[in-house]
């Protein structure tokens, strides 16, 4: 092996080592940051009732919570039911009509055997369809509360957020994706007929 050849080999090795160290450092820093962030989650803000909460896709303002036996339709169900209702204002901030309310908020901590709520449009006193963009509406979420579980005096709700991605990581298609919760809201549960 000539001296010149040995020099190019040495250069190549040096470049390889520099690149490896750089890549290893980047990986280590990124991993450490992920671990640190997971260990120190940002505190979720507490929102007051009546305060608008920006969830990315929606703006939601909780009004009140109550328990009763009469659903928002005003028609008494044939078998008596224990209902828990949460009234809120909802504004669709996306660019198209949406009826994806189901993951908007959840009771925290979760209650066993609680079926998902039904959503009613207060204006029509009937089950809500899609909400039009930029046209806020008063809505009522109604849970059929299990008979064995007492209705709490206070309802703690975790409000979720979603962000819009122009290109998702799998197909490169646009869509809405869940992110960390936006806020916790505590509502006093009143009574209604």
């Amino acid at each position, binding site marked *: 092996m000539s001296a010149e050849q040995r020099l190019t080999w040495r250069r190549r090795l040096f470049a390889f080592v520099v690149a490896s160290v750089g890549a290893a450092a980047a990986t280590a820093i990124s991993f450490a940051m992920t671990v640190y962030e997971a260990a120190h989650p940002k505190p979720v803000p507490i929102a007051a009732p009546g305060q608008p909460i920006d969830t990315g896709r929606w703006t939601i303002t909780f009004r009140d919570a109550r328990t009763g036996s009469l659903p928002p339709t005003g028609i008494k169900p044939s078998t008596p039911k224990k209902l828990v209702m949460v009234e809120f204002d909802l504004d669709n901030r996306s660019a198209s009509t949406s009826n994806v309310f189901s993951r908007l908020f959840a009771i925290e901590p979760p209650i066993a055997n609680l079926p998902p709520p039904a959503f009613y449009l207060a204006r029509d006193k009937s089950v809500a369809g899609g909400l039009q963009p*930029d046209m806020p509406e008063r809505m009522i979420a109604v849970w059929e509360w299990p008979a064995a579980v007492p209705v709490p005096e206070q309802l703690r709700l975790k409000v979720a957020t979603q962000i819009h991605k*122009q290109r998702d990581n799998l*197909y490169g298609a646009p869509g809405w994706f869940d992110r960390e919760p936006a806020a916790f809201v505590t509502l006093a549960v009143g009574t209604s007929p």
Partner: protein
Amino acid sequence: MSAFLKGLGGVALAAAVLYGMQRTTPGYGDITSPRPVTGKLGHRLEGRAFAIDIAKVQLARRVITKGASRDSTFTTSGVWVVVEGTAEALNESLTLLSAEWLGPNGVRYAASQRLSSLPGMLPGQRLEPGLPTPVLMAFEIPESQVAGGTLLIARSAWAPLAEQARIEMAGVKPVDIHSSLVVARAQGRVPWALSAQ
């Protein structure tokens, strides 16, 4: 030295080309977006699978529906847009499940589900080839989105590369808004009767 500059130039050029390609690559949503067929209000628009002719557009603050047992009043924070027309399948029987109002600001308002039980609503009408069928659509939109709107009609809202009729709503202006529009059931070819109040 000149070889080094040439190399640098090559790298810069490659970076510029790659950046340009990255910025202009159409996304999955663009690649699979519906194929538009454009038309105008009052003219029959013929696509491959279906033909549609929008005859009349009326605006109202409230829609009152006459039911068998009781009347219902539907209010809105914006304005109701009630669209009447005729649709026809061209090759095979089909239903047009998706109707949207595209406002001038680019926001799409789907046909209101609050009035979906009315007779003759577009998603409920089965269209047969050679039999033009009267269809009704109702939209709930902010007043600012009335002028300059476009009606988008397709077999489904999600089907990739499907045909989409885009009908320019020229001449629809938020000047003559009825205070209320009464929709009643009717016997005959057109299953509804609209009257302004």
